[in-house]
């Protein structure tokens, strides 16, 4: 592994909310051109981990390095190497899609001429929507705009927090294709997801987090192969053939999380 290929390195991350230890000694890395998935039940610590990477949350210990910049020591450098699509991404409802793109282009220091704006809108198949308000778009269209904003400044790392939740199968497939296109261009992608299908379909490697700890980290197939003989995984299997979801349930338990 060449250090120059390392885009994200999370080392010994610990996050507390009062006495609650939400993220416990989490470590993983993401390479250039890799799609890495963070999987875990609700409240497992995925969003807290992502928030620490985004610089929204200060960990009690551990470090996060993005494109060689420590997020605590050089937060602005690290942030400029990241493109983010938040779980609850929202933009000022009074602004049009074109104005939102202009705003974020300015914030990321990207010159967005009329032609460039049209080309971005064409790329996301929303040629006629630049004068529409963000809330007037469908869920899939909103995701496309959010992703376009996240990649406007050509970031080395793109963070996607549950990007396909609430999308129809067509929009989901389209988003997967966009993620793969980003990988081909050399971007690294870190996504959180509840969808095992998504993890298997697009992720090169995944980490399963439970109760704030990484319980497995590898390629989806290797995670299946390494865990398929465990009794708890076999017990979770519904159709005989062990799937990633069976491994996930086996490793994290059947109990519903809040």
């Amino acid at each position, binding site marked *: 592994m060449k250090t120059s290929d390392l885009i994200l390195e999370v080392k010994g991350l610990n996050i507390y909310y009062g006495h609650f230890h939400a993220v416990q000694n989490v470590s993983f890395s993401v390479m250039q051109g890799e799609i890495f998935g963070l999987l875990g039940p609700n409240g497992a610590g995925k969003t807290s981990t992502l928030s620490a990477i985004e610089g929204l949350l200060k960990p009690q210990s551990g470090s996060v390095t993005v494109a060689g910049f420590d997020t605590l020591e050089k937060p602005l450098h690290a*942030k400029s190497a990241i493109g983010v699509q938040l779980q609850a991404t929202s933009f*000022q409802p009074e602004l049009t899609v074109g104005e939102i793109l202009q705003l974020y282009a*300015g914030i990321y220091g990207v010159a967005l001429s009329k032609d460039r704006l049209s080309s971005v809108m064409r790329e996301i198949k929303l040629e006629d929507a630049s004068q529409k308000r963000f809330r007037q778009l469908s869920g899939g269209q909103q995701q496309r705009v959010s992703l376009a904003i996240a990649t406007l400044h050509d970031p080395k790392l793109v963070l996607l927090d549950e990007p396909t939740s609430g999308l129809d199968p067509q929009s989901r497939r389209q988003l997967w294709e966009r993620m793969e296109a980003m990988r081909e261009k050399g971007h690294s992608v870190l996504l959180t997801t509840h969808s095992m299908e998504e993890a298997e379909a697009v992720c090169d490697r995944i980490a399963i987090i439970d109760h704030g700890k990484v319980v497995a980290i590898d390629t989806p197939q290797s995670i299946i192969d390494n865990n398929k003989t465990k009794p708890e995984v076999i017990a979770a299997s519904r159709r005989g053939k062990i799937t990633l979801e069976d491994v996930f349930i086996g490793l994290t338990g059947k109990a519903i999380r809040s």
Partner: protein
Amino acid sequence: MQTTIPNTSSVFTSLLRADFTTQWRNRRSFILLLLVPVIILFSWKGVIDKFGGPFALSSCITIGLVATGLMGYSNSIARDRDKGVFQRLRVAPMPSWCIMASRLLVQLAMILVLTIAVLIAGKKMDNITLTPAGYAMSFLTALIGGAVYLGLGQLIVGMIQNPETVNSTSRLIYFVFIMVGMFGELGILGDQLKEVVMWSPYGTVKRIIAAGMQPAAWNAEMTTALLVTIGYALLFSFIGIKKFKWNNKQ
């Protein structure tokens, strides 16, 4: 692929453009805020004859400032925090103070618009004119007074997370300030309350604006009122900023 940090002035310009556009699209609600002091001024012919033009103008500007800080600023901050607008902005490579500074600059511009509107209404409807120094001081004292209510708005969104509760609290405080302030100042609610109102955020702001309109009449008591006003602005802002959370899920 780049890792250059955009320069702060271009970031700030982009934020300001977006925030002014947002304010422009919400112009109806601002016009409604503006109408209250203008209507009061229109209906106060008797008060102007009895207490003078500066008394009426300063009361109306103060009412507008209370509305701008409490209803306009705090509600827009609470709404955007609830929708995650701030979280999205904070993951961008810029210092967080830029986000708030841009919002505050827009509000200060609105305070100037409000002051101009009341002064024009005073001239057109009641023929109240000031000296050039009086006009200049009116703007200056209105901005200082506006800082008190923006600070109070910040305090409300710092202490309260829920946008509906922010809305109802700011309305309640607005109502209390206006009613107790106006009637208390006139002595209708008793001498003791009159004294309290005089040194309250309502009373000190109103008095420095009124005194600013007649610079020749400025005295030591007004200087004390100015210092108390600045103290209120600093205190409210300090607590409001310290308690403020960018994300209402924290």
